[in-house]
């Protein structure tokens, strides 16, 4: 008996089952992971599930019979009828994509300049850009409204894009500067020796190497603009210009009649879809972008 037990107790490198202590740790690790997943994912799955149920069942006590009452009526309701959620989705897409592209382009150029060119005051410029991180936009909302009004950019999607770009640029510049710092300078020296000017170096040599950083910046700016509420509520008043967060708020507040939780769930699911799609498409680059330059500082 003891001879049969002893080899298992000495397990590990011989290929026999791992010691009991190690499998207990693994089980606990997996259980903790499952718990975290449950906490984050279950509410999302619940919202998706409830969005396919009639309104009277959404707020009712859940039962197993609910799975037989699935319907697309909430979606047809918010995209048709008086609500026309399509226009809010379209406005949000325009604003979020515009913000993402503008932030990425400007942050790339700024990050390249700060990472590669030595000029007097460059550290101060970078510090000032980072300082704006500490200023919540809510604190400057009123003067911004007056300023955009003076330029005729209130009630304008372009004005909103400029507003979002301003407050997302510091993070973008930070990420892109670190991204460029992680690229060996000898690559650019080599390209210059080969005859490339600054712009060709950026496009032909550096562009493929900075994709993770650019993807991170794009994703961050897009998500920030897609989900932002207060700025959109402040700067947009015309119904046909409203973005999705403001449109959903109106839905919740009952501007379109009695509050319909089915419609609300469907609207929430619609607002999630582009974020999930973009994140899945860019996730490979996102982690790289956040950690690039981590060792160089």
């Amino acid at each position, binding site marked *: 008996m003891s001879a049969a037990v002893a080899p298992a107790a000495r397990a590990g490198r011989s290929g026999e089952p791992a010691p009991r202590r190690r499998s207990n740790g693994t089980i606990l690790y997996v259980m903790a992971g499952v718990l975290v997943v449950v906490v984050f994912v279950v509410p999302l799955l619940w919202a998706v599930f409830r969005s396919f149920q009639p309104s009277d069942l959404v707020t009712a006590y859940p039962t197993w019979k609910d799975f037989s009452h699935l319907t697309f009526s909430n979606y047809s309701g918010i995209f048709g009828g008086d609500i026309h959620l399509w226009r809010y989705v379209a406005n949000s897409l325009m604003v979020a994509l515009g913000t993402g592209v503008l932030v990425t382009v400007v942050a790339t150029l700024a990050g390249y300049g700060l990472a590669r060119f*030595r000029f007097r005051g460059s550290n101060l410029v970078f510090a000032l850009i980072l300082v704006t991180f500490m200023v919540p936009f809510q604190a400057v909302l009123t003067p911004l409204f007056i300023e955009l009004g003076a330029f005729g950019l209130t009630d304008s999607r372009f004005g909103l894009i400029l507003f979002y770009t301003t407050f997302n640029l510091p993070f973008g510049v930070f990420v892109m500067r670190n991204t460029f710092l992680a690229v*060996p300078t*000898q*690559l650019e*020296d*080599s*390209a*210059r*020796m*080969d*005859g*490339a*000017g600054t712009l*060709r170096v950026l496009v*032909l*040599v550096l562009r*493929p*190497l900075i994709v993770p950083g650019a993807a991170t910046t794009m994703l961050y700016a897009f998500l920030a603009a897609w989900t932002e509420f207060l700025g959109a509520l402040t700067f947009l008043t015309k119904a046909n210009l409203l973005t999705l967060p403001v449109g959903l708020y109106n839905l919740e507040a009952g501007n379109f009649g009695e509050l319909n939780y089915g419609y609300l769930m469907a609207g929430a699911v619609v607002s999630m879809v582009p974020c999930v799609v973009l994140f899945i498409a860019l996730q490979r680059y996102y982690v790289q972008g956040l950690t690039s330059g981590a060792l160089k500082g």
Partner: protein
Amino acid sequence: MSQVHYDHVTCRYAGSTSPAVEGLSLEVGDGELMVFVGPSGCGKTTSLRVLAGLEPVSAGTIRIGDRDVTEVPPKQRDIAMVFQNYALYPHLSVLDNIAFPLRIAGMGRSERRARAAETAKLLGLEAMVDRKPGHLSGGERQRVAMGRALVREPAVFLMDEPLSNLDAQLRVSTRAQISELQARLGITTVYVTHDQVEAMTMGDRVAVLRDGRLQQVDAPRVLYDRPVNAFVAGFIGSPAMNLLPATLEAGTLRIGSVTVPVGDGATHHGPVLAGIRPESIALAGDGEGLAGKVTLVEELGSEAYVHVMTELDSDPVTVIARVRDDETAPARGEQVRLHPTAGAVHLFGVDDGRRIED
């Protein structure tokens, strides 16, 4: 003509208290392989980079042939460079890496690929032209970097420690290939290394730098046999030359208890630094000579070196001596006597380290 002229070139980095390169003046002949060598921070890479146009010149001029290129951008200097870490474009294949300069120059796709393929064949890379740099060994990457430089047929070829990332065995074979290729193509080449063995074996001439200043530029043999100062004497040669405190009086050099005749031409009197190469010190078990104890024996197979701890004017000093072919190396802890060979001693001033002519 592809001669390179440095004319009192100084390069000072912004915010730095001392120049990285100061008053560098030397010429590299057409088709010559000039090696810049020195310890870290001596200014050899900076000297290379100012020639490439990658660093600005604070003072002086640089000419390639008859052309003053001091203010000319890198791409217009007709120079190609191989970097220490090769600087290959990771997203391009070997062929596209080699063809990149031709693409920038505006050459058509089929023509540049044909030229790149030719260069790849010259360097033995034809079997891997479609691979990316990440799938190549260190030696293969080094050849791709050379290919990218050679495809342009430059007037001057610059190499910044290209062998430092290779293992010892590959380094030996690759430096021979580089020397042979450079001689065959006849391109004026400036090569930077911190390895004095590389410098001595590859260079037509070697420029030794220290703290941004040129110490000596000469053929390797001359550097070895007639170093102009104690720094060059101690830097060139492996193992390094022994530099021992000594006294010179009336044509006789006294090193501890040993006296060595140095000839009637020596006019200097007083303390000096005596430089003696390990192969110029004879070992004996007893008799006359500097007494010492063996602390280390380095057996290299073809030769052996012993480290001997002795005393000079009550100060402990380690002297390295080569064991002659007909001798057996002493054991560690053994007492030995050291005899410098007359006529093989180099004399340097104690204050400035400059060579004292005999």
